[in-house]
């Protein structure tokens, strides 16, 4: 089988993530087994040889991340899949992907932490790691699916974003979404927008590896005669290392601005009954499904509450949060952690935030969230 044929499937999130990646053109996977994302690795080991792609199980997550960056520079759309502890190990080479402007996709299926934590059960403790985990300044792009359908669709979008913005893009799913079985609808291949990689082969005179006057310069792939230097050191447009602060400024501002200037195109969110709401609950991933239920119940009681769900955790949907802050006097931010994304919601909305902390290990009970909504609005 090449591509998953169009139709309706009863499938889990890990299946959807894998097939979405293959639809998007992923032809190289390197990974290390880790609960709860191992099924992605296992399915890739079946599927990639079928489509003429490459699968390798590496010695650890550091190597996995390095291998997908190497493979991407070698000409393959590439990805890895992991969970918290492995995501920590990948941070070093996520930085390498950023500074070398190499497209890759990193799936991080969140579980309980810190450290080994609760490997088999849900958590949402990696959302700040996705933002700030790798040292230095980054402008990360992170998608957070909340269903099996979105796992498929956002995996394609993540590959498109990686190829467009030339950097590692993170899909922050969680243990429950990964193992949840529900309806997945796959459209005809031609109904999907797939970004094909543009490359440069022949080098004209002094043409650089990078061009900081443009947001997007096609990459070159190894072996095509470009003869460029790709460097983890701060480098100029020629790709050559430099210790100059002025070069760092030029490179860094290019790396950040190519994302920051395009935030409107990247940012995605879902809104549920926010139009007239006096209270907005901000939730992402699996938590948003409990929140939706709580909002529905509260509406039955006549309470004017809505849900705002960032689909891209990063870039942060800053503009929309600011607008919502004008109509809503308060935000509730429930998360399966002890307050992470809530910090950003507070920072950008500059309003009162009610944090709701749920310990990793279980999906938040909608009745607990409903009680909080009632307390705020009654």
């Amino acid at each position: 089988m090449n591509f998953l044929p169009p139709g309706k499937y009863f499938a889990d999130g890990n299946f959807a993530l894998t097939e979405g990646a293959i639809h998007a053109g992923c032809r190289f996977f390197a990974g290390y087994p880790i609960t709860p994302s191992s099924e992605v690795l296992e399915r890739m080991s079946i599927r990639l040889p079928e489509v003429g792609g490459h699968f390798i199980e590496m010695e650890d997550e550091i190597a996995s991340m390095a291998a997908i960056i190497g493979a991407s520079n070698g000409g393959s759309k590439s990805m890895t899949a992991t969970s918290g502890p492995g995501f920590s190990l990948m941070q070093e080479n996520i930085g390498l992907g950023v500074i070398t402007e190499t497209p890759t996709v990193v799936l991080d299926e969140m579980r309980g932490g810190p450290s080994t934590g609760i490997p088999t059960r849900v958590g949402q403790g990696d959302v700040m790691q996705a933002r700030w985990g790798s040292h230095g300044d980054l402008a990360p792009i992170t998608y957070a699916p909340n269903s099996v359908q979105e796992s498929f669709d956002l995996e394609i979008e993540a590959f498109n974003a990686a190829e467009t913005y030339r950097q590692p893009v993170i899909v922050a799913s969680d243990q429950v979404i990964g193992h949840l079985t529900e309806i997945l609808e796959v459209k005809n291949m031609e109904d999907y927008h797939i970004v094909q990689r543009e490359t440069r082969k022949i080098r004209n005179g002094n043409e650089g590896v990078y061009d900081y006057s443009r947001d997007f310069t096609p990459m070159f792939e190894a072996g095509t005669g470009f003869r460029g230097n790709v460097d983890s050191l701060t480098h100029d447009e020629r790709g050559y290392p430099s210790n100059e602060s002025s070069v760092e400024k030029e490179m860094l501002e290019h790396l950040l601005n190519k994302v920051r200037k395009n935030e409107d195109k990247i940012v995605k969110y879902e809104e549920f009954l926010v139009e007239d709401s006096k209270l907005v609950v901000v939730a992402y991933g699996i938590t948003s499904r409990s929140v939706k239920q709580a909002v529905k119940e509260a509406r039955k009681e006549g309470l004017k509450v809505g849900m705002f769900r960032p689909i891209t955790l990063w870039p942060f949907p800053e503009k929309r949060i600011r607008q919502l802050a004008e109509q809503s006097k308060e935000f509730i931010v429930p998360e399966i952690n002890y307050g992470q994304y809530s910090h950003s919601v507070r920072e950008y909305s500059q309003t009162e935030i009610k944090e709701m902390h749920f310990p990793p290990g279980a999906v938040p009970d909608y009745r607990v969230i409903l009680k909080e909504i009632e307390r705020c609005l009654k």
Partner: protein
Amino acid sequence: MTEVEYHPKHDLIREERFPHVWCPGCGLGIELQCYLNALEKSGIPQNNHVLVSGIGCTARIPGYANLDTYHTTHGRGLPFATGMKIANPDLKVTVISGDGDLFNIGGNHFIHAARRNMDLLVICSNNFNYGMTGGQHGSTTPPTSKSASTPYGNIEPTFNLPYIASALGASYVARWTVMHPRQLTKSIRTAMDVKGFAFIEVLSPCPPNFGKFNGFKDGFEEMEFYRKSSVVQNDAKLEDISIDPFHGKDIVLGDFVNRKRASYITLEHELIDRIRGGGQ
């Protein structure tokens, strides 16, 4: 007197990047030249040669070669190169990095790349210490010798690199020094044709660090010491060739292993053909 207009290897190097970063008396320039000489003789098109490195003084070699070059993170050159080679098996991927990069921080990657018999040529420049950070000791620092972090002498045993590579199943294993440029060039040239994992250890002086800490007055004296301590023995018993020159032990050099063993790329392509050939 004739004016020299071009560097004799102007098409193989990035002239605009010279002078290089290395210290007087360093062996890395020789190593770069040996690699380029081997590349010229290899018959493999220049565009197919790729150089990958981790971090450190040796890891700066790729930046001077006029090829597609990749200077990655500390210790991670091998997994990066593994991904690249699998994605495009037409490439001749050489990883050139230091002993600290390949065997200390990158040790885990080395044992697995060698075990897989991954189709990579790995040239490890061994200067017995971490040069770029000021001469601290590592897993290749000879017994009792001094370094910036073993001021009272090294109490740890050292890695015997050819023995490790051979035990892991590498197709090709050799050890030379930068004072043996002809043998080293020939060895690199041979290794470029090897299917599977080829490993060459190259001993190289580090005059301002390891040399200085151990009483050598300059790079030449350090090189001379390694040369005089060396014996060539291609059929050496690899378990006996750990490096301990300060206690009168010979440094054993040679082309130790050159054997046919199924390489990763060969086996992976067989697998893909088998899966795609059957029952679509």
